[in-house]
């Protein structure tokens, strides 16, 4: 592969960001004007939400377990082992629940969207759709974006819950802590700001995962190889952007709520 000149490199990336922004703007605008393809939205919700359920629960549960196990050994040194529940619930709620669920859904669905739309693009099905009078942004992108935002929110809550439960099981049966005080401390640890932070993240993450996945799909070029490239880029870029935005949201909410 020849090296692109620096100005060429900057130009293609600026154009990509511009195209991405236009895609997002058009997807949002499509939400507020008819026709809305409800059938497609529900089938995407099923595919993205229900389909990601097993992996999300598995990841959330074992993260909670390992969190309890690891933090208990450190906390024991300070004689603060009773704080385990507090640590598990704060970490799950504010950080690990949203991020891990986001990464799972990104790996599973951003790749799916990029490859599905990418194959449609290279076989001219997207153009055929436009030629038949249907806006692919409305028909393909909007259902995926709205379904991901909506479902990721609930998947994250579920992941938080099973994570705390997993931590509880480990604390009670392996660390010999008192179950009631574990759950009491998990509950007491959370304040309003933590909940806002934990609930806000999946909304942004869902939007990023789906729009980036769709963007790479819709801008696929060059046959089957191009589809493969779009898929890997979709997962990589959406996960990367998601982690950067995670940092920004954390900093912002710490600025607002002080924690």
């Amino acid at each position, binding site marked *: 592969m020849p090296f692109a000149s620096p100005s060429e490199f900057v130009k293609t990336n600026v154009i990509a960001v511009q195209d991405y922004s236009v895609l997002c703007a058009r997807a949002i605008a499509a939400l507020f004007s008819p026709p809305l393809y409800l059938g497609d939205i529900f089938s995407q919700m099923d595919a993205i939400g229900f389909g990601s359920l097993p992996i999300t629960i598995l990841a959330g549960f074992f993260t909670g377990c390992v969190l309890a196990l690891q933090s208990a050994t450190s906390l024991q040194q300070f004689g603060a082992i009773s704080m385990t529940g507090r640590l598990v619930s704060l970490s799950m709620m504010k950080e690990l629940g949203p991020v891990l669920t986001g990464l799972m859904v990104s790996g599973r669905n951003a790749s799916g969207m990029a490859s599905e739309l990418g194959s449609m693009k290279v076989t001219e099905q997207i153009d055929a759709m436009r030629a038949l*009078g249907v806006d692919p942004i409305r028909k393909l992108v909007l259902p995926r974006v709205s379904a991901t935002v909506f479902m990721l929110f609930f998947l994250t809550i579920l992941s938080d819950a099973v994570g705390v439960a997993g931590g509880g099981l480990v604390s009670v049966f392996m660390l010999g802590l008192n179950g009631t005080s574990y759950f009491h401390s998990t509950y007491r640890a959370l304040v309003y700001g933590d909940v806002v932070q934990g609930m806000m993240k999946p909304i942004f993450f869902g939007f990023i995962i789906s729009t980036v996945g769709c963007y790479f799909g819709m801008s696929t070029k060059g046959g089957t190889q191009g589809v493969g490239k779009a898929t890997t880029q979709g997962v990589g870029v959406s996960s990367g952007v998601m982690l950067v935005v995670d940092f920004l949201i954390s900093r912002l909410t710490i600025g607002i709520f002080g924690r």
Partner: protein
Amino acid sequence: MADEQQQRQDGPVLELKDVSITFDRDKVLNGVSFVVQPGETRVLLGPAGGGKSVLMKLVNGLIKPDTGSIKVFGQEITTMTEAQLFEMRRRVGMVFQESALFDSMNVEDNVAYRLNEEGTATEEAHKRVQEALDFVELGKAITKFPAELSGGMRRRVSIARAIITKPDLILYDSPTGGLDPITSTTIVQLVVKQRDVSHTTALMITHRLQDAFVLATHRFDTDKNEMQPIPDHGVDENTKFLVLNGGKIVFDGSTLELTHSEDPWLKSYLS
């Protein structure tokens, strides 16, 4: 409003002026101008990679030219928004080079795509799909999926999908490309039928010169339900030619003008 309607019907269906487009520094089309009148079937010839498919996508507003003007049904489409373009495309049917059927849908849903979009009642849609498939002689394949069809069948499903709403303009991109002579003839016959029975304006790309000449020298006999050669070596007046080479129009005219052209490049291309 009535005047505008009238003018739309009488004026040319397609009018391109000085259209140019560049992809990655390659000038794919360079100052293309031509006019297609109502009822005309315009055959677009030219070597591979000459920009024929690009030209057809420009006409349907799927891509925008860098410069120049494209008028479809008398309306300038280069400045239209996507929403206005959808309005224009309702009157245009398009057959893609690789068929571009939706592979997750069966033949019926593919052909009915536009009807379903317009909210046509299920029975009515089914009836019209059956009609359109019978027209392309594929009535039996209605429940099949694109992957289960042969290339020629896919091409015909794609034609059925394009004609189901009886568009005023049909764009055929290489409908006979890569097919055996018998299937090609079936497809050319469909185009002739569409020309002589429905009198639809059409733009057709082809690589096969013999298909182009069959199109020009045959007419559709509704009694026998097949195409027949026009007697006395006659040619169809509504069939005209356009030859594209290196991004420029090198020929624009009737069948006889094409076969009697003295241009050396054209002569070698046609032989």
